[in-house]
């Protein structure tokens, strides 16, 4: 099929053009990839070192996930990140930072599932868990496995091991 082949070549060119944007530490200058997604549904694709952004249409919150390796099952995801470093920011509030060995982001349902040595950090507390589900629309978290919340003195930090993604 000519159309299918064209699409695949187009996708390949797009991925090649995106790859340089996803490498290195100059993450603040990256354009938002989610604003220019591939234009056709395809099989699984991989992006080396990149960022995925999801934002509330009404501007109440925005979510950003970075990883050294991102796999997508389709144009709209879900996306799988290994490892994952995420940032959720509600308007007028401090950011929520997240790290995990892997993450699964569904832009459609606006949910992210973090698994493996998960840490969620917000202002004066940090949560460690094996599994965390984050509903981006509601800003609601459900953590399971053994969960541990640390509060009080000492600022919350990223885990000492795990993600090597770029911090903010």
């Amino acid at each position, binding site marked *: 099929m000519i159309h299918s082949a064209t699409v695949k070549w187009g996708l390949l060119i797009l991925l090649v053009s995106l790859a340089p944007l996803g490498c290195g530490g100059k993450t603040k200058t990256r354009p938002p990839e989610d604003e220019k997604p591939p234009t056709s549904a395809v099989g699984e694709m991989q992006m080396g070192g990149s960022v995925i952004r999801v934002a509330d249409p009404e501007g109440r919150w925005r979510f950003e996930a970075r990883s050294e390796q991102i796999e997508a099952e389709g144009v709209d995801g879900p996306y799988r990140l290994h490892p994952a470093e995420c940032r*959720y920011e*509600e308007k007028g*509030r401090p950011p*929520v930072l997240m790290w995990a060995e892997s993450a699964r982001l569904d832009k459609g349902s606006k949910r992210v599932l973090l698994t493996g040595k998960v840490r969620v950090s*917000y*202002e*004066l*507390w940090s*949560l460690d*868990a094996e599994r965390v589900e984050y509903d981006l629309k*509601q*800003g*609601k*978290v*459900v*953590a*399971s*496995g*053994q*969960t*541990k*919340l*640390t*509060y*009080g*003195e*000492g600022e919350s930090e990223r885990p000492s091991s795990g993600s090597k993604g770029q911090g903010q």
Partner: protein
Amino acid sequence: MRRMLALLALVGMASGALTGLGLAGQAPPASATFQRGTIEAKSWAGPIQGPWEWSKEVKVTSSDLTMTCDWLKVWPTKDGRDWEKMEATGKISISGRYVAADKAEWRVDGRAEAASYDAKTGQGVLKGSVDFKATNLATGATISAVADKLIYDVKTRQFRFERGERPVRVEWEQPTEKATSPGATGQAEAAKGEAAK
């Protein structure tokens, strides 16, 4: 930086109760002792700004004191720097080492069926088969109390035991005498009335 943690006012209640029983003189505000801690559980859920719920094998640790329960819910203040309110249910257990204002060290063990704290009223409440025991680590003196409800006022550092129509039982045991001291077991008071929540 102000890091008052009302959550462990419940733990402080145990200490406050002991203070009221004459063990420690003037205790510091319950929350002043606890600056950093952890809450562990099998499950944790809630909006990122709270309120949060923990369930199954909940364990709160701060300083040298530990509280365990089946379920815990905490409402943080808007700035996230304090607890506004908290509730806990199911096999409440408080244990650990408490250093009183007079530097005396106590081994504290407490039990109850439910616990709550409200920063607006400044009161912490333990309810249901409240049972407290404290041992002075230096002298070995032991004091214990049994009641249906323990109300601790964080601001005034006063406490009140309630046991419905029955008298509250308070026992004091000196280690050297190996027996309950005369008159120690008895009718502290059975205060009535509703505890502020």
